[in-house]
């Protein structure tokens, strides 16, 4: 079965509420998690806005789906690559992002961060390392 595992990357380049892309991407990730593939998520350009803290959508009448990112670890989705240049350009730092952790069952259930801040060049390497890239 191991031979059937492919590297899937979901690329997020859109802000969360202006269009439906970000929510749809998360839905597809959760559905795809059932298929035991090697899944990663990439956040670059306006996609980094999806991960910010303190989102409150009560007054715009849409669901705040940002807490769902914290559940991804339970679906063995533990690699969230975030591009540093995209954060910098938008006046954000890693501290502006939610803390998203996963529990490593091979390491006595130690809590580990899912977010990995990478440079633009490293993000290009992440892309080049995939079998399948799904863009949102």
């Amino acid at each position, binding site marked *: 079965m191991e031979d059937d595992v492919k590297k899937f990357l979901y*690329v997020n*380049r*859109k802000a969360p509420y202006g269009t439906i*892309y970000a929510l749809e991407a998360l839905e597809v990730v959760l559905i795809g998690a059932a298929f035991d593939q090697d899944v990663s998520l990439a956040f*670059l*350009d306006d996609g980094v806005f999806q991960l910010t803290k303190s989102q409150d959508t009560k007054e715009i009448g849409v669901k705040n789906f940002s807490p769902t990112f914290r559940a991804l670890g339970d679906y063995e989705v533990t690699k969230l690559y975030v591009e540093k240049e995209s954060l910098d350009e938008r006046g954000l730092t890693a501290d502006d992002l939610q803390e998203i952790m996963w529990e490593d069952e091979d390491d006595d259930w130690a809590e580990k961060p899912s977010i990995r801040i990478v440079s*633009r060049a490293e*993000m*290009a390497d992440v*892309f*080049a390392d*995939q*079998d*399948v*890239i799904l*863009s*949102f």
Partner: protein
Amino acid sequence: MATLHTVNKSPFANQSLLSCLAHAKDGDTVLMIEDAVYGAASGTGLADAMAARSGVNLAALGPDLAARGIATERLLAGIKAVDYAGFVELAASHDRAQAWL
């Protein structure tokens, strides 16, 4: 292990083409389709950004160029016009495809 990147939005309306160029690796191909073909014309403000990525193969979809009245002679140097069969060839000859929506 090259990637085929497709871009379908005008580079004068959003940053997708520039972001794509910033992430493409040498040996990759960037194919402009739909409104992105406006970025393939010479004499635009994007010419320098395109020329700076000389290790990346640049292509534009001919039917989309024709639909928008962009003659092949007006293409930036180094950009290849491909037809639909050429698009399929590119998809088949690269290891993966990435759509910059």
